[in-house]
């Protein structure tokens, strides 16, 4: 469904990602793990189109989207739930969800998706009219997931959905992630909470300083002691 072919992404003159190639097959959860500054967020932003790679190409559903701007990629079914939530704090919960469906015209289906999201996160329904900036961290993360889903994506990019959240909320978010994956949505996940991430994913890439260090099935990765030492501190 998604292939990155040897992409390079620069911040000014500094390469954040070098010769990176990853593949995500339809219906799977693929995880990028790695330390801070390894280039995981940069990779997701390149897939979303917020950053453009200076070399290499990005193929999505067999189409070259390398140069396509972010808003066009949303219409093609890619959504990013960004690191640190980045919900629109001055707008209400409901308005955040409405903007999630910005490119869509199908009013009835938008209504249906909104009901579905309120079903996934009943708390959001209760807080519908509240200004999003006043929500707690966990609620904001739920809203960020909901806003991402409102674009009706086929490929969902998740950047550190567990960051800074209480363990019970992390479990709740991950239950939802599994649930929507089982309904057929493909996911590319970035996570520092490596045990949580590897538990749900089908395949994983380990990144280090902008490059892929190793890749494999989650249990193979777990077995690699060197990685555990480096990333889990065990």
């Amino acid at each position: 469904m998604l292939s990155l072919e040897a992409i390079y992404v620069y911040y000014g003159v500094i390469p954040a990602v070098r010769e990176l190639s990853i593949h995500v097959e339809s219906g799977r959860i693929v995880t990028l793990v790695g330390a801070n500054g390894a280039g995981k967020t940069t990779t997701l932003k390149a897939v979303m189109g917020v950053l453009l790679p200076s070399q290499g190409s990005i193929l999505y559903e067999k189409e070259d989207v390398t140069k396509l701007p972010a808003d066009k990629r949303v219409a093609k079914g890619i959504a990013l739930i960004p690191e640190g939530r980045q919900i629109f704090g001055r707008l209400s919960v409901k308005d955040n969800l409405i903007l999630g469906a910005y490119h869509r015209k199908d009013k009835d289906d938008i209504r249906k998706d909104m009901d579905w999201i309120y079903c996934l996160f009943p708390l959001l329904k209760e807080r519908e009219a509240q200004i999003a900036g006043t929500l707690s961290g966990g609620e904001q993360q739920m809203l960020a997931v909901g806003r991402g889903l409102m674009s009706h994506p086929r490929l969902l990019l998740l950047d550190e959905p567990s960051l800074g959240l209480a363990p019970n909320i992390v479990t709740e978010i991950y239950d939802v992630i599994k649930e929507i994956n089982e309904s057929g949505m493909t996911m590319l996940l970035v996570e520092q909470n490596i045990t949580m991430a590897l538990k749900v994913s089908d395949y994983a890439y380990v990144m280090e300083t902008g490059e892929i260090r190793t890749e494999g099935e989650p249990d193979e990765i777990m077995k690699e002691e060197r990685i555990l030492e480096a990333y889990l501190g065990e």
Partner: protein
Amino acid sequence: MLSWEYILQQLFNGVVVGAMYALLALGMTVIYGILRLIHFAHGALITVGAFCSYLCFMKLGVPFIATIFIVIAFGAFTGIILDVVAYKKVVGGPEVTLLITSLGFYIFIENFMKLVVSPQPYPFHPPEFLTKIYSNGITFRAIDIFTIVVSIAIMVAFQMFIKKTKMGKAMIATAENAEAARMVGINTNRIISIAFIVASAIAAITGFMWGAKYGQISYDMGFIAGVNAFVAIVIGGVGSIPGAMVGGFVLGMLSMFSVAFLPPGFAAFRDGIVFFILIIILIVKPSGIFGQKAAI
């Protein structure tokens, strides 16, 4: 001398002038909110609007209502030109670049106007029905009422647009976090263009009211108007829409009262007095009346 009628009269004058400042400040603050750009060239739009109405109404004899629509359209058009030519290329660069660009464009437009219309001021005669004088305790002309009514209508319409429409909400989202806005599929470039179009159209129509109120227009009328709009924004809280509107009215009152209640000799120092008060406000409350909280 300080009768109630006198005070009421000054209050009324302050509201009329303040309404025009508020309209300019509104557009300026929206552009600031989205681009982090102090849009000094915004003041030039009232010059453009004033001369456009002069040309249409007084020289070509276009009917009043049609003139208004032409002024709005021409203002919007100038806004697009500014956006595409001046800002699209420099947005995302250092703030200093943006600031110099906007200042440069103000000076360019002002000089261009000087070249086209010559440096001397022109008398501006609004349509008959706007020059009617009413005197009933306080004295005012129909143009004053026109200015207040149109300004408030524009402000209400703009608030409705921002709060109720999907595009207005997208504008708030873009102002808050442009990257996240792009992630949800908002074409932020289009939002920026719309902000320029709306702000410039509003400024152009303000140019008509300005000319009609003062009876005179000149190539450099946009400068002090632009500076005053900027001061209104600072008073209200930079980036805040309600702040810009309230700031406009507060500034209008300040400039009227500073003339009305000081000894006659002080009238010439009005701008100095206004800026002195501005400095006091900034010392007491640097974030302005509406501060950061109510931003756009």
